[in-house]
């Protein structure tokens, strides 16, 4: 067993876990943060995507013990208190989700993407979400949400 402490959404969180504990399960089972979803557990669907030191990674392809001490942002950490983040509001406004299973992965991925590319062209927006699968929306509204989030962020400033 290993003592693992991660800075999750700005707060140090600790659990004692076996080395085989995936980061996705560490967040969900050990810390009770069930916002991070688990779909395929082999890196393909993107539902488990979290930000590790600000960069999107697959939580299902990361051992918690291997990233001890690092900063993790989950979907629970995107909002500012009660106020949803621009990316979250854009997805709600543009119907970028239906069942919501894939949504945490899209939200984290898009949040990191817009930080690097605040005004994406259409093909860049599509490319940005190409690694995440959604069985409901048909993607059109997700791509719209990316553009709307960029607008909201530009309006509201940093």
């Amino acid at each position, binding site marked *: 067993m*290993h003592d693992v402490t991660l800075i999750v959404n700005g707060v140090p969180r600790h659990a004692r876990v*076996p*080395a*085989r504990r*995936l980061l996705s*399960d560490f967040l969900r089972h050990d810390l009770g943060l069930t916002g991070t979803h688990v779909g395929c*557990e*082999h*890196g393909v669907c*993107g539902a488990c*995507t979290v930000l*590790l030191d600000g*960069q*999107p*990674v*697959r939580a*299902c*392809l*990361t*051992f918690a*013990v*291997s*990233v001890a001490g690092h900063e993790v942002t989950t979907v629970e950490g995107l909002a500012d208190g009660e106020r949803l983040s621009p990316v979250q509001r854009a997805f709600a406004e543009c119907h970028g989700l239906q069942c919501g299973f894939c949504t945490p992965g899209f939200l984290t*991925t898009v949040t990191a*993407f817009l930080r690097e590319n605040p005004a994406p062209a259409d093909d860049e927006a599509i*490319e*940005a979400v*190409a*690694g995440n699968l959604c069985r409901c929306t048909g993607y059109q509204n997700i791509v719209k949400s990316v553009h709307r989030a960029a607008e909201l962020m530009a309006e509201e400033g940093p």
Partner: protein
Amino acid sequence: MKPPSFVYHAPATVAEAVEALTAAGADGKVLAGGQSLIPLMNMRLAAPGRLVDINHVAGLGEITAEAGGVRVGALARHAEVEASETAFAAQPLVRRALRLVAHPAVRNRGTTVGSIVHADPAAEMPAVLALLGGSVRVRGADGERDIPAAEFFTGPMESSLRTGELALSVFFPAAEGGTAIVEVARRHGDYAMAGVAALVAPGHARVACLSVGPVPVVVDVTEAGGDWARAARLVQEQIEPEADIHATADYRRHLTGVLAARALKEAADA
């Protein structure tokens, strides 16, 4: 599914890592980005008894210009190598090929050296290393050696790395002439059904094909003398594609011919 349990080592230095790997013997595996190993463990296709996690080893993440090319350390993530101006200046093909590897979230964690050691014949970076005639620097209990690409890949997911050896870095040579890489995948970011990397220099042309043999297949097409349709036929004669759920053997052969002509033309114009 969940990965099987294992004993975890987190060495801080290369010496400690080699020691842990040597002690573990055939039961040990290196954990780099985990983007190939952890899926295999989650699917219970791999069950190493001991994992030697190199993510905390100092000094393995460097990307350095050397005479005649660029050296990429074992902890340099695909995304870092892709963004590296040093790597791009030395060998632009490295960046172009990395943009075809999976998706950004996988590239943020997966390492270029890990992808080469993993030696998937459908992967882009082994083909790039084979095309350029690069090498892999490894260290074991008996010291360091450089393994040329032509001797490194020995079969699907098999390399000439010995039990207990750690890959420290790979070397991508600069190349005189132009290079290109093209592929066809079912979806962007998927492993390709077929793909071809090409190098065209004055008086010399060759390609490396992926997904059409147990290892990257390098074919010298110099004798085609710039007739890329003829070069494509030479390539088609040299490959032994297999069928799987994504494509038949005939379709792979057809694709590889078309892609070879396209890649060679692009490299010649580059």
